[in-house]
């Protein structure tokens, strides 16, 4: 019944030739009639081009311009009603497209459907995933303080709605997908479903993102929300702001300690420290307090020895 809505799954791929066949196979295995698969090779330097050519899928080539640009290229090339963006190292669960398309078919107001992420390791074995409960009635509020769509494969968009928005905004870098979700959530156009839709892969080559960069990008998105959201939402955006600073602040502290003791001190570390002090003074204070306590203790020991 729902098979009237056609679906494109865009698979942007940058140097994930090893996992690309798994991603494409997971699209082919969807129990849904009209699913196109479109691979966007984002200037890979590995065997992606050859692997994709051998699989008989629609292939778009572009010089390396980043994942958001690759997704946008897929968006421009697609003509279907619905669109999914599946990272090349992830896999859709077999009924993902059918479930998400059914939700959009029965809810004409919704422009995105969002499900949950399962997590797997490099060999496809399940790893635990910790999703906090989301209050569907206050989706925008919840989304302001955490992004529960860990990988875009857990979302399905109405293509025209996303295209009207201009696709993924490049200026906010790695938080472009987050910006899009918030935009739809603010308008109340998101439908949450309780099913797992995608298997999110953990592997050694997963991009270990710089938390300071992620925090700056995320806060840039929230600044955009502050400008556009109604004044009544200000307070909630502030709550989300604080929560993100806490979340990435802890990661920045961990990374800085690693870098400091590995004698890795460059502009990146200075920027991370500046980011921490500027946005996460509470996290910095918590760790500084521990450090100060130790210095005090040590000096007391020194006195006792005298």
């Amino acid at each position, binding site marked *: 019944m729902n098979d009237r809505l056609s679906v494109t799954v865009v698979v942007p791929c940058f140097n994930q030739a090893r996992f690309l066949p798994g991603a494409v196979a997971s699209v082919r295995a969807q129990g849904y009639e009209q699913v196109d698969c479109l691979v966007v090779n984002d200037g890979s330097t590995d065997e992606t081009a050859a692997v994709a050519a051998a699989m008989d899928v629609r292939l778009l080539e572009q010089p390396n311009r980043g994942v958001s640009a690759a997704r946008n290229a897929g968006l421009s090339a697609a003509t279907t009603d619905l669109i999914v963006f599946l990272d090349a190292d992830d896999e859709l669960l077999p009924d993902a497209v059918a479930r998400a398309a059914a939700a959009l078919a029965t809810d004409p107001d919704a422009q995105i459907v969002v499900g949950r992420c399962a997590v797997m390791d490099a060999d496809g074995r399940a790893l*635990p995933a910790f999703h906090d409960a989301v209050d569907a009635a206050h989706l925008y509020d919840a989304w302001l303080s955490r992004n529960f769509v860990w990988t875009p494969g857990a979302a399905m968009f109405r293509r025209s709605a996303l295209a009207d928005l201009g696709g993924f905004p490049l200026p906010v870098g790695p938080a472009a997908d987050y910006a899009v979700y918030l935009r739809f959530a603010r308008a109340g156009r998101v439908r949450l479903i309780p099913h797992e839709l995608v298997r999110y892969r*953990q592997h050694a080559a*997963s991009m*270990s993102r710089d938390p300071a960069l992620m925090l700056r990008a995320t806060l840039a998105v929230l600044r955009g929300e502050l400008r556009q959201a109604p004044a009544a939402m200000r307070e909630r955006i502030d709550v989300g702001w604080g929560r993100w600073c806490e979340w990435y602040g802890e990661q920045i502290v961990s990374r800085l300690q*690693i870098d*400091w003791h590995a004698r890795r001190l460059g502009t990146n570390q200075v920027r991370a420290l500046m980011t921490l002090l500027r946005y996460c003074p509470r996290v910095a204070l918590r760790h500084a307090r521990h450090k100060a306590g130790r210095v005090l203790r040590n000096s007391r020991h020194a006195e006792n020895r005298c």
Partner: protein
Amino acid sequence: MRQVTDVDHPVVSVVLCTYNRSHLLTPALDALLRQGPDTPPYEVIVVDNNSADATRQVVEPFIASGIVRYAFEPSQGLSHARNHGLSIARADLIAFTDDDVRVTSTWIRSIVDTFAEHPDLDMVGGKVEPIWGDAPPPWLTESGDAPLALANFGDEAFRIGPRSSVLGARSTPDRDVCLIGANVAMRRRLFERAGNFSPKVQRVRDGIGSTEDYEFQLRALGLGSLAMYDPRIVVRAPVPRERLMKRYHRAWHSGHGRFYALMRDPSFERSSLGTLLGVPAHVYRSAIREAAAWVGNVVARRNAAAFAHELRLRFLCGFAAQRILQRI
């Protein structure tokens, strides 16, 4: 590694202290992240106690998971490292494990379950099962568990009372056992009452026989806290070949004796005949008895029994040596 959680209020904080064991850390962290599907949210704090190896590089990729955190503790010693982990832990339940241990996939959940079933419980420990690096030698009996940092007190849960016996972490009929740091968890409120781990009796670098776990447990029990052994809480620890040599066990018991002297277990210090050179009289008496039993068993060629007496003698000698050296 990428995100595996969006929860920022963990129910359990796992504190894992490490010193120069980067080659074992990846399996340890993998096991901690491979918990079963119905595990409550948790965080893992890796406290690097001044390692000189690749520890940092091993931990780094795990940080983006949102579960693993890294902290560096420059003061050398296990208690310093654990206290550092404690001070930045966010959860109300704090679980400890070691850098060479592989927790089972139900570890976190069973800890949370046990505390939920017993609201008055402050401290719980479970089994530490061996992953033998080589076939265990015949002289290795249950009393070898403490030196190997293993623990198995049976399949029944029980409450732990103040202890009266002498040696290490052995199980005794009255169920006075020592919960060891490879598999133990506490409520935060216990540290507020009893204080932190003591640096006086801590393991420093690769030192052996330290009693920071036991010293803390004695303090906790002394305050009337409820501690339990629960066999559902299981971890596995590799036992490398070098720990299956008699040399290691001899050194451990001597070291344990010295730490025990530093710790001052009140029940052990009590003496009806007073002390000589700071050593309770019963230590001399026991030493003479153990020495005689050792010689007797050697003559009778009962090797396993002889070795057990030798180890107890080494413990007592380590204890006495520490006290006498303190005097001089």
